[in-house]
């Protein structure tokens, strides 16, 4: 029958994923931007606020906000690379020929999830130690971090594809991403405040639900609309 097997979407996506990781490993632009920015902000916050300047009852509120600010702005420094670099290097056309659009988006999405999870895994323990931020319900906290990172990576991968075609990419990336990311960030911050105060997972289950719904909706919308953006 057909000698050439149909390129499965997942296979193509994984190929894009591997290619991007390799390219990233050679230059390390996104990794450096993400980690150095996150670390620099962590040092600043740790030095300026630190564990002792906050009254114990204020810690859950303030620390939850600071933690998500660090994660969010780190995402804003590095996650646009996946598409911007293709336009800058002039490789976007070749990529257009090599893989179907959903596979490209999925591959880039996975790269951004990996990058953001790595930064979060690096930042969160340091943050907890430096700020003596105690989490009463670790399972809720971890669920919020995982879902928050999925949502951040999902929406920002899509906006990265948009800004890669525009001028003033860096500034525009944050401007376009903030409105899309405000709902999950508010849910994640509020949920983290609950996780720092209550031991019961159920107390913050609503926020987890909002995040699950958001991640599902934004990912679906991104995949549905990516075709038009990518062909432009």
């Amino acid at each position, binding site marked *: 029958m057909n000698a050439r097997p149909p390129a499965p979407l997942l296979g193509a996506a994984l190929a894009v994923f591997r290619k991007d990781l390799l390219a990233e490993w050679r230059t390390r632009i996104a990794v450096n931007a993400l980690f150095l920015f996150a670390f620099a902000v962590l040092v600043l916050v740790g030095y300026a606020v630190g564990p002792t300047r906050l009254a114990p009852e204020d810690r859950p509120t303030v620390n939850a906000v600071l933690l998500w600010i660090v994660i969010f702005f780190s995402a804003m420094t590095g996650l646009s690379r996946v598409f911007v670099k293709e336009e800058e290097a002039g490789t976007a056309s070749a990529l257009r020929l090599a893989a179907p659009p959903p596979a490209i988006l999925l591959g880039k999405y996975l790269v951004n999830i990996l990058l953001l999870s790595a930064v979060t895994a690096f930042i969160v323990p340091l943050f907890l130690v430096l700020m003596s931020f105690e989490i009463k319900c670790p399972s809720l906290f971890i669920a919020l971090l995982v879902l928050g990172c999925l949502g951040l990576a999902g929406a920002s991968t899509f906006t990265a594809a948009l800004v890669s*075609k525009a001028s003033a990419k860096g500034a525009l990336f944050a*401007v*376009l991403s*903030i*409105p899309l990311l405000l*709902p999950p960030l508010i849910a994640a911050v509020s949920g983290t405040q609950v996780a720092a105060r209550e031991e019961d997972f159920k107390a913050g289950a609503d926020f987890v639900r*909002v995040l699950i*719904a*958001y991640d599902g909706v934004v990912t679906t*919308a991104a995949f549905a609309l990516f075709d038009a953006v990518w062909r432009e």
Partner: protein
Amino acid sequence: MKSLGLVAKWFLGLGMAAICWGAFLYARPAQNFVGESSRIVFFHVPQAWVSTLAFFVAAWYSWRYLKTRRIEDDEAASAAARLGFLFCVLATVTGSIFARVMWNSYWNWDPRETSIVLLLLVYGAYLGLRGALEDPERRATLSAAYALVAVVTVPFLTFAVPRMYQSLHPDTVINVRGKVEMSSDIRLIFFSSMVAFMGLFYWMWNLDRRVSRIVRERAGSVA
């Protein structure tokens, strides 16, 4: 057709004047509000409603653009977004003044206040994206895609979050109990004002689209 438009314009102008008169002189102030502050409902709510409606109009025409690739649809979407931004600013400012009178603070991150700021941000981002794209077709496609992603994420803050927190904001017209709780004089002026504001939006939107078309045709004839 021309005379119909003229009649509609006169009707809108006189109607708006009548609504202003009715809002201040005919309708009585509602109970449980500080002084005369409830009269803001006749202007603030239609503005907020039009700014939300404009967002859905922009999203609808964006979707149509992606289907048909007609530049007119993109112009309609961008006109709706520009007007939506204007009405959104008005709704935010009037709401803030009301908050000052009612709760003695211009801004207190009530869920409704948060959601209107989100809408303002989305409009700003959409218009910013349009400004950063030179090529008309690319601008149309990318801003349409952005508008459609935004339209699915905005409901999270406008519908989900306000119901998860306590809000000081007076019940919206479409409330949990599913009925309009207004006295008849207020209801008359309020719904007339809703219709008039939507008419105003439609008129301004149409003007904007016609100007866009003329500009495009002029540019085409020069090139």
